[in-house]
């Protein structure tokens, strides 16, 4: 969802800060040609900007901190900038990072290239002009994820990783318990799911890969040819590939196209075939299911955490508040899926 604001609506001090940084990086004069505020996440502001740099015009997107931090595990802008650079260098389809704020800026930012395409989830799964893209998208999502998971980790900036001696799965449950403790709410579904999952930690082959951390429809640019770029890298970390693999299948990311298990656009078979064809390591079905369930639990907890931002007064917003009730969708899913697994075992 975007709202159009006139070019001069970009605050002057911010404009001057951006242009000075671009000139410092290029040695060329820079000027703002167009600016449009994009509806971004709740912790970051985004702008679509056209800059004249010397004789060229660059189409860019600005990502800038707003002050509020959504998660203790989120990357800062400088780290995200370095990560994007490493990912692009390894062949990942993502916007190239271009310029960044000087160290010590009050609100850090970076500018990245602006790629064409649609990112709004409900449009990606429904827009008539993306019908052909949806035919190939699940396979492309698998292929692109295999490329991400093959990015050499020794070339990455320092990003979160499981605590020494803990598997990625154990780390995920540890973090979920920490969120529950912060929420100070009791919910039998969370307690039951945490116990059930802890008793069934998946086998882990020891491979620590670059995990995008929020790989789903809504964070992907899609054009008529399919996947145009992977966005929103702030939750990247080192972990188990199955975490990324399963996240896009969480029901809420299907945007009501429930039968299309992968992001509301395609089938699991196409997705996993794409992953394997692009060199992805073998997929353990039990681990995949486990991470799918953890994904539902985490998203439910995150929804409650968003509601708390409103209730605690930090960010008054009826939208954030409403997410606390939306969590029931993921909680229902958790119970339903665990029940189906238990019935199958009997």
């Amino acid at each position, binding site marked *: *969802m*975007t*709202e159009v604001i006139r070019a001069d609506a970009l605050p002057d001090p911010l404009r001057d800060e951006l242009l000075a940084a671009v000139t410092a990086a290029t040695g060329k004069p820079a000027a703002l040609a167009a600016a449009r505020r994009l*509806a971004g996440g709740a912790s970051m502001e985004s702008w679509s900007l056209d800059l004249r740099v010397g004789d060229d015009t660059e189409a860019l997107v600005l990502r800038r901190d707003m002050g509020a931090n959504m998660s203790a595990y989120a990357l800062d802008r400088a780290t995200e900038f370095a990560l994007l650079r490493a990912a692009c260098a390894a062949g990942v389809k993502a916007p190239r990072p271009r310029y960044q704020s000087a160290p010590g800026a009050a609100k850090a930012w970076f500018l990245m290239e602006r790629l064409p395409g649609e990112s709004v989830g409900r449009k990606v799964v429904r827009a008539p002009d993306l019908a052909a893209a949806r035919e190939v998208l699940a396979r492309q999502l698998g292929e692109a994820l295999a490329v991400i998971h093959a990015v050499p980790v020794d070339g990455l900036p320092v990003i979160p990783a499981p605590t020494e001696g803990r598997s990625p799965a154990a780390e995920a449950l540890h973090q979920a318990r920490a969120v529950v403790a912060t929420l100070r709410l*009791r*919910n*039998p*579904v969370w*307690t*039951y799911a945490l*116990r059930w999952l802890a*008793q069934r930690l998946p086998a882990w082959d020891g491979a620590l890969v670059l995990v995008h951390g929020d790989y789903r429809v809504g964070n992907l640019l899609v054009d008529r040819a399919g996947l145009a770029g992977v966005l929103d890298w702030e939750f990247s970390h080192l972990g188990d590939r199955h975490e990324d693999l399963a996240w896009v299948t969480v*029901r809420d990311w299907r945007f*009501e196209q*429930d039968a299309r298990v992968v992001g509301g656009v395609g089938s699991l078979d196409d997705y996993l075939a794409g992953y394997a064809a692009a060199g992805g390591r073998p997929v353990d079905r039990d681990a995949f299911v486990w991470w799918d369930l953890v994904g539902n639990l985490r998203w439910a907890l995150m929804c409650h955490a968003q509601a708390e931002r409103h209730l605690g007064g930090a960010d008054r*917003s*009826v*939208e954030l*508040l*409403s997410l606390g*009730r*939306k969590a*029931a*969708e993921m*909680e*229902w*899913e958790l*119970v*339903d899926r*665990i*029940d189906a697994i*238990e019935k199958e075992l*009997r």
Partner: protein
Amino acid sequence: MSDERDAYEQHPSALDLIDAAREHLATRVLPAITDPRLRFETLVATHVLGVASRELSRGPEMAAATDAARAALPGAPADDAALCRLIEQGRYDGAEAGAALRRWMQSRTELSLFAWNPLFLMRVKG
């Protein structure tokens, strides 16, 4: 008995107030909004009033049924905190107790969904 009702401060009822505000947003305010962001936020505001309305209209009945069903679970937990403690102690690790707990949690979440998004269950179960 006539069909007259007491007219204390509860009349019109909280439900009447919420429904009127929801109707006002839906029929008068939303059509007049052109800003996409404001429109989305107002849609959410309209929706949450619908949630509150559905919950209030069935609330006491729903809460009583849920509490009674929870007390009938193995270990007879008196409230959610007690139930959580029993879960952590392994009281529902067995097949039958686990199945009973999951049935209760299903009906509990379905009540929440009836208020939040009645279409969700129709979609995922249909």
